[in-house]
């Protein structure tokens, strides 16, 4: 009884959803997914969420942005996902210079050319950070040390990350200098390595720097200091930090955020997306939030954007990525050990220990049937069958097989499959706002 009411309710919700989805013909008539190729809570994620909030609050736009975090692989997992998506404007990628760096470093075999650039919105200012009691109190002494004793200055930058390229640009301003690049992972780890004296210097965004800075009066070996900001002019948020230019080094760079759509997205959709983003960036709350994070609210579209991307790429392209030397070949070692141990185990136990007597052959058959249904189910999902239509028959078939086609259970299992499929979709899409397949 309760279940029938619930099923009716859910079917009603689904039908309503289906109708409202096809109501308007004008783009956008459904929510727009923004793929963030990093985990929730990171810099890019925080930035996208500021924009998303403003769009949701704006009455002019009926469809919200929905954020999809797809972290991993140096931002290539999310990037590739958008690249292969339908070019209808309903799925976007927001990434920063990491997209360009990943391609140049050989981490990704695609670049921004394989996507449609929608807009560039926002640039993080970068600062060079040392421990407060560091011998390097300015760019001059830092680069001098790197020149006189190449590889002696430990620079925290993951190889192939944007920071690595910015550091290379810095090296270039003082010919002959060389940093020793050390991959330590994200900003947090870099920060604690600097405080612990395990790194000499690192590149951070101004927002990160302000976040990590301890109040005045903290002992000097427990605090950090920014020795240069890589912008043309000083940043009002951290006025005391001199620019690289002031110190006589011609380097100016920032890490910009870009919005991309898949290649082949219709121009009308791109224009509409630009309109939405343009409105969001002018929203006073967005301006205030970005200011708090020290993100410059610059904005580029069209030819200007293409040129900007091209210049960015050319400027980073000059630098070769040198993988670190002196590291043992870990995978080879582990493969070797695994093979040795496997041989040992096989010799010791090889012959006599697989007993099949205690498994019931009839139940093994049942297990194989369920495995087959599970595999078919996943293949259906892979082929793009929508979640509910794939899940209902999957649950029903698995259940009825496990119940050995008991007629009395036919109806309850059918009810369960419908109830669970619609119910789980409801919970995920409406309550958790996570799109299911």
């Amino acid at each position, binding site marked *: 009884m309760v279940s029938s009411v619930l099923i009716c309710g859910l079917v009603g919700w689904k039908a309503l959803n289906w109708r409202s989805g096809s109501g308007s013909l004008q783009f956008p008539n459904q929510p727009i997914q923004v793929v963030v190729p990093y*985990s*929730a*809570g990171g810099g890019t994620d925080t930035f996208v969420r500021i924009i998303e*909030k403003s769009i949701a609050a704006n009455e002019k736009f009926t469809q919200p942005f929905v954020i999809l*975090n*797809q972290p*991993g*692989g*140096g931002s290539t*997992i999310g990037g590739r*996902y958008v690249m292969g998506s339908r070019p209808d404007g309903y799925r976007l990628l927001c990434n920063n210079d990491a997209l360009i760096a990943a391609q140049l*470093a050989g981490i990704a075999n695609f670049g921004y050319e394989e996507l449609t650039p929608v807009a560039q919105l926002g640039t993080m200012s970068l600062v060079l950070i040392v421990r407060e009691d560091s011998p390097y109190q300015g760019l001059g002494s830092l680069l001098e040390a790197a020149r006189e004793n190449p*590889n002696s200055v*430990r620079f925290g930058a*993951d*190889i192939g990350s944007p920071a690595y390229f910015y550091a290379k640009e810095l090296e270039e301003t003082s010919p002959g200098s060389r940093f*020793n690049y*050390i*991959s330590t992972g994200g900003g947090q780890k870099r920060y*604690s390595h600097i*405080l*612990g*004296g*395990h790194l000499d210097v690192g590149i951070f965004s101004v927002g990160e720097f302000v976040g*990590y800075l*301890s*109040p005045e009066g903290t002992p000097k070996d427990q605090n950090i200091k920014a020795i240069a900001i890589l912008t043309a002019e000083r940043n009002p948020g951290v006025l005391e930090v001199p620019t690289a230019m002031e110190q006589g080094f011609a380097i100016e760079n920032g890490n910009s955020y870009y919005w991309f759509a898949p290649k082949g997205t219709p121009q009308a959709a791109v224009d509409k997306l630009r309109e939405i983003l343009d409105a969001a960036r002018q929203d006073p709350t967005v301006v205030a939030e970005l200011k708090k994070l020290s993100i410059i609210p610059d904005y580029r579209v069209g030819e200007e954007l293409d040129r900007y991307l091209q210049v960015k790429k050319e400027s980073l392209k000059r630098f070769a990525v040198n*993988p*670190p030397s*002196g*590291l043992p070949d*870990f995978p080879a070692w*582990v493969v070797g*050990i695994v093979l040795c*141990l496997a041989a040992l*185990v096989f010799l010791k*136990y090889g012959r006599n*220990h697989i007993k099949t007597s205690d*498994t019931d052959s*009839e*139940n093994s058959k049942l*297990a194989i049937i369920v*495995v087959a249904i*599970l595999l078919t*189910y*996943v293949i259906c*999902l892979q082929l793009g069958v929508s979640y509910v239509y794939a899940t209902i028959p999957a*649950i029903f078939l*698995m*259940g009825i097989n*496990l*119940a050995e086609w008991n007629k009395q*259970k036919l109806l*309850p*299992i059918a009810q369960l499959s419908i109830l669970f499929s619609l119910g*789980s979709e409801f919970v*995920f899409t409406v309550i958790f706002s*996570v799109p*299911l*397949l």
Partner: protein
Amino acid sequence: MQEAIQLLFTPTGLFLILLGTSLGVFVGAIPGLTGTMLIALVLPLTYGANPQYALTLLISIYVGAISGGMVTATLLRMPGTPASIVTTFDGYPMAQKGQPERALGLAVMASFVGGVISWGFLVLLAKPIATLSTKFGPFEYFTLVLMALVLIASIGGKSLSKSLLSGFLGILLSMPGIAAATGQSRLTFGINALNDGFKLLPVLIGLFAINQIFRDIINLKKKSQSKEIETKGLSLELADFRRQVLNMIRSSVIGTWIGLLPGIGANIGSVAAYTVAKNSSKKREKFGTGHDEGIVSAEAANNATIGGALIPLVAMGLPGSVVEAVLLGALVVHGLQPGPRLFGEHPEMVYTIMGAMLLANIAMAMIMGFSMRWLARISRIPSSYLLPVILVFCVIGSFALSNRIFDIWVMVAFGGLGFFLESNKIPLAPFVIGFVLGPIAEDNLSAGLMATNGSWLPIVTRPISIAFLALSLVMLILPRLKKKGLGFNREPLVSE
């Protein structure tokens, strides 16, 4: 502090604690759904909320989820969350023997005590650790992880070679993807989706949930002959509490300590506490057959890891486990930077985190007490209803992590691997541990070697690092001396 207390005791605060803990317990009780996933899914809902309320809700879910796993672990031998894998060793046999109430009662008691003890450590240690933390460099981290690996090498089945094989297989399968040190992808065989390697969640769901479901199907008939497990709730005797006090304190301390270590979660905490409890017990042979000490050590430790793992999170902004990484994200989203500065600038946040953890533990014990009968019904649903639903949950769980169908395939494949390994009596626990710790060891060793231009010398010249190394050697050699000199046989930890 006053502000934090006032906030937690408002109707909203108490409601959030109850809601979060119940949600966590329920989701934790469903195999294939973990607290990590729930927290990751709830996080977006809290963006608009007051950060103190948001953290209260998330921490309550965390506490509830780690505890909720015990229900299915005990009644079904299906760990609801990875944290309760070890609870299956003794909880399930005890339930099979007709004492599910006592098994669950012990587990709830131990969870509560573990939570409260580790909470004490959190309150005492968070601030001093914040200052100390910066002394640890890559070599220290590497030797620290090495020590943990050696400690763990003693778990597993009867055969050391099989445990080692399993452990190294875990390390090997953690390697595909982009290597942190070189930034180059490796062992991906041209499959782009493998650029990020295999993710922990689908791997765990496959190894434990999928493998177990198919084992259940094969044993379907046999199971129906065995006694049906029913539970009327919890039962707890004062005598049990008195007998277990020492074990609970010891296991909670171990759990807290393991929780402190980076990247190592509740599952390893409970394994370590279980190993120690077994090695120091007079009734070693009873472990794995439904022994009370086993349940208590595992459950006290896995809840204690929460307080332990919150220490580096609050003190240094370093996540101690996967869930902590999500919690860190939550703090950052709300514009709060954990670390020494948090104590000075947002003390109310620190006290909210601490207070929420204590209250959530109390709520957890209450919820378990009142709703166990109902929760236990999960195990009485016929398998023809339950198993298909769990299978679909496993699929959604693997998918929702990062919205990739590839992860579902990973889960299916690791389900097959887990089935194969267990059929050949190769234990799975060392595999998981190798899988989690391998990358941490490698990343730190690489960072260290890059800093020294390839020299291994600092491992033995840095005092903290050599101390960890010496400890690992002692742990490696000591059991062998015992075995040879005193004639002890190698005891299997996992009953087969």
